[in-house]
């Protein structure tokens, strides 16, 4: 079991992040409520709160989903990613408040249990326009809850990375469910084309961003076509790699990060053990390859994390011939020591 989750404490950056995020959420809610009261003086407080909280949760989810691809476009967004899970938890809390108020308002004090009412009140599944939109909201809320509850690295370690990652990809399912919740719910009554426009704009932004960065990634993933000799593949010139940084190439279908540091060159898998972060976009800090996402560290020669941590990534044989770096595409077992190639 990893000890990594104990190493990350609540530092100043996290406090700033949380404060800014809470400020943003409260500003949104306040502006929504004040606008509602000014322009619709007849509205009741419950209805206004339900709409403000629901809208806020959905908007925040749009922000959460933007962070990943934005970091691929510009690494200066990375601090947003580092504490993204806090934003995910905040999204869940807003959604839960929205759902809770709606449950009390629309389903409590009736002739059946409120939760039963949500599931059995409207069961018109034959016609799309009448479909019980509450089901989509509830489904998304359950997913957001599971992700929020397992957001701590304790769960990442205990569920194992692939299971955890798969669970957290559920955020896209939650997003789709919430789009349906909005389209089949409030947009059946609120017919301003501007509201549809705002929703569409958000969807186009999220989709466009993902398609764009996915396409760039896909282009980068094309098998590196260099000269081969003795099973080694020519990757690049030593001079092409900035000091303490890496050059990422795809060899045998795997992303390999070739780091230059301290007069040496080492090659290791570019996929971080923590959450598959792009290790090759990281940096050598204090002699360790450091992941740009959450700062996990690996020794360049062995691909192993410094004790007491136990993560390790595969390494690759590497050599330098006449200023050119050559890498063997066969991965060594994670943590296997490989002699770095000396420059010059």
């Amino acid at each position, binding site marked *: 079991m990893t000890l990594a989750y104990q190493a990350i404490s609540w*530092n100043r950056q996290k406090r700033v992040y949380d404060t800014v995020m809470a400020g943003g959420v409260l500003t*949104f809610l306040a502006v929504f409520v004040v606008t509602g009261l000014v322009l619709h003086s*007849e*509205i009741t407080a419950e209805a206004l709160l339900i*709409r403000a909280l629901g809208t806020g949760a959905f908007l925040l989810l749009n922000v959460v989903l933007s962070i990943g691809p934005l970091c691929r476009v510009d690494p200066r*967004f990375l601090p947003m990613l*580092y504490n993204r899970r806090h934003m995910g938890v905040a999204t869940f809390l807003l959604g839960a408040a929205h759902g809770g108020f709606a449950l009390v308002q629309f389903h409590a004090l009736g*002739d059946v249990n409120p939760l039963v009412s949500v599931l059995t009140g409207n069961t018109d599944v034959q016609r799309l326009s009448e479909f019980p939109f509450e089901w989509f909201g509830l489904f998304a809320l359950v997913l957001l809850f599971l992700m929020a509850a397992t957001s701590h690295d304790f769960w990442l370690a205990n569920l194992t990375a692939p299971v955890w990652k798969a669970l957290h990809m559920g955020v896209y399912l939650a997003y789709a469910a919430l789009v349906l919740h909005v389209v089949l719910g409030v947009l059946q009554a609120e017919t301003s084309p501007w509201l549809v426009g705002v929703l569409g704009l958000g969807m186009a932004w999220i989709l466009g961003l993902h398609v764009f960065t996915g396409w760039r990634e896909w282009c980068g993933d094309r098998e590196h076509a260099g000269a081969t000799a003795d099973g080694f593949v020519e990757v690049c010139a030593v001079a092409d790699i900035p000091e303490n940084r890496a050059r990422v190439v795809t060899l045998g279908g795997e992303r390999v990060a070739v780091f230059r540091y301290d007069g040496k060159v080492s090659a290791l898998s570019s996929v971080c053990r923590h959450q598959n972060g792009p290790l090759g976009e990281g940096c050598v800090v204090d002699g360790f390859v*450091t992941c740009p996402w959450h700062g996990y560290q690996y020794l360049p020669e062995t691909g192993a994390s410094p004790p007491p941590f136990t993560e390790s990534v595969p390494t690759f044989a590497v050599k330098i011939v006449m200023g050119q770096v050559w890498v063997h595409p066969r991965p060594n077992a994670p943590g296997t020591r490989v002699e770095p190639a000396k420059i010059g």
Partner: protein
Amino acid sequence: MSAPFYIGYNAKMPPATAAFLRRWVVALFVAGAGVAVALAGLQHRYGDGQFEFGIVKSFDGIISESPYPNLIVRRPIGTDAKDVRSRVLLVAPGKHGAQELVRGLEGRAVTLQGSLITRDNQSMIEVRPGTIAVQAAAVAGDDGVPLGNFTLRGEIVDSKCYFGVMKPGNLKPHKACAIRCISGGCPPVLVVRDADGMAVYFVLAGSDGGAVSSDVLDKIAEPLEITGEVERQDNVLVLKAEPGTYRRLE
């Protein structure tokens, strides 16, 4: 190092990264506020109903149980005009009708306490349980006046929410609540709008004049056409038709 490298567990981020993010955070705040104004502002009007929540008043009148509990009062509530009969629908707290509260009191003169719910020319009282006091023996109620057959297009709402307890109290977002309320006994009402958008309200009854609550649950909050006999019961219009003959409008 070719560019400042950010590590989350360091106490400070590189200044260039911080400056970059500050600009984005400001932009996000402005965009968020703009979206909030747009989304809150672009909604429909929520309706003019009033619910005197927490204000309990005393009312005198004669109980009528059918098709839904109502109180026949001697003047329109809120005016001094005497000798005009007016009917006020009665409901219980929560999503419940007042059937249990008035059972067996048909035609009795009572005083009761409750909170007023009003919208347009419609009024309703949320009766406080345990406050109905019978004042006199049975008094014969008047029969309704038939106005003829009509085909009407509108939406079924639960009258309690629509008249003012919830805003908005109709259409899809409110559908499940309306189902709950009507299932609980609140009178189902067909809201018909004329060419100017003015609403006319028809309390729905079966062809025998009885309650139809459980038979309309799958037809609430969607466009409908109903053909039936309209009867005036004092100020209240009752539309008598079998729920099986209601026609959905696509």
